[in-house]
Structures are given as C-alpha cells and as structure tokens.
C-alpha cells in the first residue's frame, strides 16, 4: 500500500468479527483485566443491569487497530488512534471494523474516520492517522 494509491473517500476493507466468550477470556487474561462485567453473567445482569456480559471496549479498539495495520501493511505505520466507546456489545454479535479516508497530508500521512459498527449502529466511532510509504522513495 502506497501513499499515491489512496484518496479521500476510499474505504478500507471491513473486518467482521463475532467475539465469543473464549476470545473475551483470552483478551481479559492478556490485558490483566479482572472486571466481572466481561465474564460474570450474574454480576453483569443482577448488579449492573445488562442483558449479558460485555465485550471489552479495548478489544473492540484492538480489532479496529488490526483492521488498520492489516490495511497499511509492513511499510505503513499507525501514527494516531482515537476512539470513543459509545454503545456496548455482547458476545455473539457480528461487529464490523472499518474506516474511510478523510484526507492526505505532507509526510505521507493519511487521516481516516474509523468505526466499529453492529449493523447500522456505531458502537465505537473514532479517527486515525497512518503513515504510508511513497512509491518514489521506496
């Protein structure tokens, strides 16, 4: 992927993931996260009032970052990454991770609006900047 190959309005390939409880367990383990709302259904329902355990916000962010770093390739670089947790997700739901290029800047920088969506619901909006190599210098 090169800087010259992309333009404002381009969409990056969408990554679709249905997170299950095994993945949530491993992500909590890998991030040393003991928060019960991610594994204790009774706590999530009876104490916090949710329908089920919650997919970790940082896992959604990590999946979104994966969509970006897969797209830019080994010569590209994630420069800035910003997301907001707007709505919750439960395991077993199809989540879409993607983005749209909003502009290009000097230094090989490409700005994007990024998202995690469930259907038409935006669960996690954000912005990102990636650096892409230029053809003539590589």
């Amino acid at each position, binding site marked *: 992927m090169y800087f010259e190959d992309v333009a404002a309005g381009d969409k990056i390939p969408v990554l679709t993931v249905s997170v299950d409880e095994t993945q949530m367990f491993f992500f909590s383990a890998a991030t040393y996260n003991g928060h019960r709302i991610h594994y204790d259904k009774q706590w999530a329902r009876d104490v916090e009032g949710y329908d089920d355990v919650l997919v970790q916000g940082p896992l959604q962010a990590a999946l979104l*970052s994966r969509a970006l*770093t897969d797209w830019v390739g*080994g*010569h590209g670089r994630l420069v*800035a990454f910003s997301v907001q947790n707007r709505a919750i997700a439960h395991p077993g739901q199809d989540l879409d991770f993607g983005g749209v290029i909003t502009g290009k800047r000097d230094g090989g920088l490409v700005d994007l609006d990024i998202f995690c969506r469930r259907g038409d619901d935006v669960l996690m909006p954000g912005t990102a900047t990636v650096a892409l190599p230029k053809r003539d210098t590589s």
Partner: protein
Amino acid sequence: MTDSLVDAESAAKIGTVVAVATGEVYRRDWQRWAAAVGDHNPLWFDADYAREHGYRDIICPPLYLQYAILGVAALGDLRPDGSSGAVTGSMAFPKAPRRMAGGESTTFHLPAYHRDEVEMVRTVDSIVEKEGRSGRFVLVTWRSEYRNQHRELLAEASTSMIARPA
C-alpha cells in the same frame, strides 16, 4: 444543596500525577495479546519480516504498550466488580460505582521492542459530571506519557472512563 457524583477527594486530584508505572515490554505477552485479537501481523511475530520493513526486530503492537506497565494486583485489593484501580490512581467514585471505559486517543512516536523498560506517567486531566440519555455520569480523563529506558517518548495517550450511579 449539592449532590455531585464527584467526591472531594477525587476532585482534588485534577492536575496531579495519580500513577507512575514501569514495566518491561515482553514479546510473549504482546504476542498473547495479539493472538487474543486474532491479529497475526508479522511485524509482531516475524523478526526477518520486521527487519525487511525497517525495524531492528519484531515490534510491540502500538495498542499493547498500555498493558506493558501493568503491575500486580492482590485479589483482596480488587474492587467488588473485580477491577483494579492501580493504573488510574485508585479513584473510587463511591456515588458512581458502575464504571466502563470511555475512550482512548493516542499518538505513537516510536515503536517498543522486546525487553524495553517503559515508564508511564499518568495525570488527571479532568473530572466532569454530565447528563446523558441514560442519566447522570462522571467522565474522567487522564493523560499519559510512555517513555523507554533511553527517555525517548514512545506514545502520548488521553484515556477516559465513565462512571455511573448504581
């Protein structure tokens, strides 16, 4: 009569350093994290590939850096909801005990490598009470800097948390 969700002890922490944490960046740990994300990018796993792409070795995934500095939590010190408050300066918000991550905004300057010693310094940027669709909540924002053993700035992050009344 004020009925703020923000207790005075927490409010007094605005602008102060609430946590300094150090940790070693360890490739097996970031690879376990990447595997849990289904992220098998060869930059995190394959040294030859990483060298072919301008790095001296495999690199830590940018979003993993925030976990490299996590310490050890004694089970008896956890909050009732199982979370550890250590990295956020143990801010409690007794009137708003239901907590969830708000968002994160990070600028990445340099990659971290295996066995880098990273230091995070976290400051409370703001604590504000807001009114949302599902009622009142507290929005806490922290700023963090991550530096390696050479004092090079690896990343600057702004992180937020939402705390709601029970």
